[in-house]
């Protein structure tokens, strides 16, 4: 068979998608993904905002607590406060780490 004949024959090998709503299905799926992506970013921003609000409140509260005495604990009140401070710092640090990792992961994906 000549090259030209073969080419002409192969020109008939184009197929058409026989599903009338195919285009709509693709666009719906894409819009869903896009909406999901946007909501993830929105939630991430809110998470960062509340983390900072929480951290500042935590700092404020610990500063405030150092000025008050806890008479029912007696001599150990300073130790209890120190433990509470360390606990708050650990919680904030671990949340900060998780959020940072998640943000980087999402930034690479989205």
């Amino acid at each position: 068979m000549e090259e030209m004949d073969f080419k002409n024959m192969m020109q008939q090998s184009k197929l058409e998608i026989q599903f009338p709503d195919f285009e709509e299905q693709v666009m719906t799926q894409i819009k869903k993904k896009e909406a999901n992506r946007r909501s993830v970013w929105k939630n991430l921003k809110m998470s960062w905002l509340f983390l900072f609000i929480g951290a500042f409140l935590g700092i404020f509260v610990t500063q405030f607590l150092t000025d008050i005495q806890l008479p029912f604990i007696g001599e150990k009140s300073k130790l209890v406060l120190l433990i509470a401070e360390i606990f708050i710092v650990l919680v904030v640090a671990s949340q900060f780490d998780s959020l940072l990792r998640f943000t980087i992961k999402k930034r690479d994906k989205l």
Partner: protein
Amino acid sequence: MVEELYIKKILNGDTEAFRYFVTQYKDLAFSLAVSVVKDEFTAADVVQEAFVKAFEHLKSFKGKSKFSSWLMRIVINEAYKVVRRNKVNYTDELLELEEISKDALKEADQKFYVNEVLKIMAPNESLVLRLYYLNENNILEICEMTGWAESKVKVTLHRARKSMEQKMKKLLSTEVESLI
């Protein structure tokens, strides 16, 4: 170029602009997907998945190649992924074709013959034939789309052409016999 404009629109947040590419390339993508997966329903799923992936990774398209080449590469990769996952087998014999098409063959429709023969050919061969003769890609573009070496593309194309001719002859003689 029009495509660049649409890409900019999409990257600026106009999701609906992606419809242009879906409309423009759905049939070609479908033809290539069928070449590999050999089934229309699976091919439609493959194409849908490929379009969604293309949309998600549009940022990574740097415009070094044609958009269609980039998109078709995604389609081809998705199709082969499905073949590997489902371990789809194809048969290069005409037995199945004889069973399903005794009546249909009598319609003397060349389009039907061509597509049926492509369906029973090896995925690599039918894919390369469609890319070269239907989409009119050159060897280098096919290498880019499939990720194959130039020599592999040339050998596959040569083999595919021979195989297509043989199968067409066999199919047409079968049809003549059935008519007599």
